[in-house]
């Protein structure tokens, strides 16, 4: 089998294709089915497919959260409300915007074509192996999107030479010529600041141990020399999330307050009002104020 073809038949590519097709088909079926219960069940399948894609992206924690929180809790909430309200599909006859459906489909195709074209023409040919960093050892996380960065890195790899130079220095040494000089100088600003040897070690390790298939990744910690799991491991997520140096801690606290407010708000919204005819009694105030006033009187 030629190597170009072998690229297409790795386990990762096959898994991606299977579950991407699954996600697409379940998403489209979800929109097409008129019955909301079936739509909800297809959305669960869709969420499972996306969870598998998270696994392929080494996002184990997110895959677990996707299945437990999304496919579990949130979809149960959806199904509960659908069955509580006993909704069928709404009557198409009272559809006021009949022209909206074909226009929406046409606009959707246009949107997908635009997004796909932009992505295909502007996303660089990333060689797949990212500059590996561990979130654990607290390096700086500055990242730039470099069109030339992967290329420059590969070029520098093909050059010979060892020693203790950092990645940026070594890139300049290994690539002769004015054009590549300029390109590597640019890439020095774009590539995250990681020591070159460290990056290379992760890359070789990923290629060597699992044959370029990065579903799971075991790396060697350069400080301790021990094997450990890198990137998107649960420890790393916690350390990044709660690191005071990083911006996530404050957002995390705000999100927890938001969840609390949402819980209280939904309880207040769904609370059954005691007053059976809130609007008819006065005719002036809103239903909410009348209901709460009646409750106060009763209390």
């Amino acid at each position, binding site marked *: 089998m030629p190597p170009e073809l072998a*690229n297409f038949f790795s386990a990762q590519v096959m898994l991606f294709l299977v579950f991407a097709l699954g996600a697409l088909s379940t998403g489209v079926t979800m929109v097409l089915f008129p019955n909301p219960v079936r739509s909800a069940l297809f959305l669960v399948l869709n969420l499972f497919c996306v969870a598998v894609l998270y696994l392929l*992206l080494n996002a184990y924690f997110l895959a677990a959260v996707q299945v437990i929180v999304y496919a579990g809790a*949130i979809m149960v909430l959806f199904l509960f409300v659908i069955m509580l309200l006993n909704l069928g599909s709404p009557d198409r006859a009272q559809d006021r915007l009949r022209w909206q459906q074909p226009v929406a489909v046409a606009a959707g195709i246009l949107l997908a074509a635009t997004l796909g074209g932009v992505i295909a023409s502007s996303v660089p040919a990333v060689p797949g192996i990212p500059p590996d960093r561990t979130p654990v050892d607290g390096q700086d996380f500055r990242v730039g999107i470099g069109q030339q960065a992967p290329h420059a890195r590969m070029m520098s790899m093909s050059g010979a030479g060892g020693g203790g130079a950092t990645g940026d220095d070594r890139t300049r040494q290994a690539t002769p010529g004015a054009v590549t000089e300029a390109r590597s100088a640019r890439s020095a600003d774009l590539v995250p600041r990681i020591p070159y040897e460290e990056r290379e070690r992760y890359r070789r390790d990923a290629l060597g141990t699992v044959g370029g298939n990065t579903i799971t990744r075991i790396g060697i910690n350069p400080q301790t020399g021990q094997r450990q799991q890198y990137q998107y491991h649960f420890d790393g997520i916690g350390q990044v999330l709660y690191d005071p140096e990083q911006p996530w801690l404050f957002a995390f606290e705000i999100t927890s307050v938001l969840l609390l407010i949402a819980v209280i708000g*939904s309880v207040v919204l769904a609370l059954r009002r005691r007053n059976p005819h809130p609007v008819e009694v006065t005719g002036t105030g809103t239903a909410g104020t009348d209901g709460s006033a009646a409750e106060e009187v009763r209390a």
Partner: protein
Amino acid sequence: MHETAIAAAGEMTRGSAASIAASLTPVHGIVPLSWYLILSAILFTVGAVGVLIKRNPIVIFMCIELMLNAVNLSFVSLGRYLGDAGGMMYAIFVMAVAAAEVAVGLGILISIFRSRENINVDEINLMRG
């Protein structure tokens, strides 16, 4: 072999047919970033079309969840390919906010259903109950 292919890809001008083909071809048997992004774009579009053509607000909510998931997928894949944990952090926050949104939205739907026994979105055009 692959190094030369990638070096050749670097020489190509951006946006040309050859560079598009290079960005869509797997290297080292690894799924290219653009595949994830295109999948995410298509899922997002399916969700957006669903929001527009559906008349049941619960299904519209589900389509919004689909769109949020598509965005999450692109966050995670970009974070993965840039080697940055920020993509995953954003995805976690999006999930938390989506959970809050679903709770409040379904509460609103229940209270609307109580007041008018019908939740066709075309009928819901008043702010007061």
